[in-house]
Each structure stands twice: as structure tokens, then as C-alpha cells.
């Protein structure tokens, strides 16, 4: 087998931790950014 189960689990876990880190960085930015600005940026992915 090319990868062990442990290696794959570790890969998933690491990936999820990186996602949480992104959310922490993003919410830090959101909290200091005016609603008008962040919602305009968010709308680019929500309204297309």
C-alpha cells in the first residue's frame, strides 16, 4: 500500500488545522474591516 492509514489521517488533520487557521486570519481581518468593504468582497463569490 502506498500510504498508511495514519499518514492519510495526519494529512486530513493537518489540512483541517490549516483551514481553521485561515478562518482565524480571515475573521481577524473581517473584524477590523467596515461592513461595506468586506460584504462587497464576499458578494463577488455569492452573487454570480
Amino acid at each position, binding site marked *: 500500500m502506498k500510504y498508511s492509514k495514519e499518514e492519510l489521517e495526519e494529512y486530513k488533520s493537518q489540512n*483541517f488545522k490549516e483551514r481553521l487557521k485561515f478562518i482565524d486570519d480571515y475573521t481577524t481581518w473581517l473584524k477590523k474591516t467596515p*461592513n461595506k468593504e468586506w460584504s462587497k468582497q464576499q458578494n463577488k463569490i455569492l452573487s454570480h
Partner: protein
Amino acid sequence: MEFEFKNNQILFDRELSELDEFVIKFVKILDKNKINYVLVSGYVAILFGRSRETEDIDIILEKISFEEFDTLWIEIEKEFECLNTSSSKEAYEEFLLNNTSIRFAYPGKYIPNMEIKFPKKEFEQETLNNKIIVKSENYAFNISNLEKQIAFKLFLGSDKDLEDARHIWNIFKDHLDKTIIIAKAQELKVLEDIINMVLA
């Protein structure tokens, strides 16, 4: 992000997305018909800036009689189309009373859609009873209590749900009671590791 959180209200204004306008149009019909409802799950995180899309907006409606539902159906069908059935009786009896959701979208569209259900578990009824109101000049709608919303997301447990929980927690942590979230999550048998990781 500017908002004012006091008691059971969040005063909050943002540039509306097409998704927000879809939701506002739908809840206006519920308000007009005096139907008690609460918006739950992913849309709550998206409303407050979460950077992801969604196919559906989950909404819990108070359990109403068929006569009330039929009146509501007629109003909804003027602007939306039910994706499950064209019969209000079937929607009510075969879906809602059987704890199965029905979905409404703009005519001829599939996404986004409003996914509607009656409360089937006690915690869903609690959510309906403990809602909070988000208000601006352009809209007002009911969303779930945020402590309970986070706990429920921890319970659902997919990566997306845990990320939504972290997002809401990060944005509102100064206004929320962590002990309530933990108690609710424990009631829903969420593992300690998950609670600790997301509410770090």
C-alpha cells in the same frame, strides 16, 4: 465589522448579496402571514461574512395547521416554486408532517432554495423559542441563538460545519457565553476534543 449586539437583537447592516435578497423576499412572506420561523445553519455564518456559498437556506417553521399552511403556500407560490411537489396537501401531509423538508426556489431555478421543516427534535423547538433578531433599515429576520447554533454545528461535525462554528465563535466570542455552548454540545454528545479544538 460593525454590529450592535444587545439582548436578543443584532443591529447590523451590510451590502446585500443575491442570496440575502432571496432570503429577505421569502421571510417577508412568512412575516406577512405571521408565521414564527428561525433561520439556522450555514446561512447564519454566511450572513456574518463566512467566505463560502450555499445551495440551501435552512429554516424551521412553527408547526401550523394545514389551513394556515395552505394560505401560506398560496402566498409563497406567487414568487417561488416548491421543488418537491405542486400540491400543498402533499407538501404538508407527506413531507412536513413526516419530518421531511420541502424546498422552495425561484420558478425554474433549483439553487438557491429555502429548505423548510417543522421542528422534529426538542432542540429544534428550543431554537425556535430562543431566536434572535437581526435588523437593519432594509431587513429584519430571525436567526438561531448563536450559542446553540455553534453547539449544533459542533454536533453536525463535518469540516464545513466545524468551520462555520469557528467563524461564528470568532466573530461573536465577546458577546457569547462559552459555558452555554459547551453544556449544549455535551448534551448533544459532542467529543471534548472537537469542542476544545473549535472553541480554542
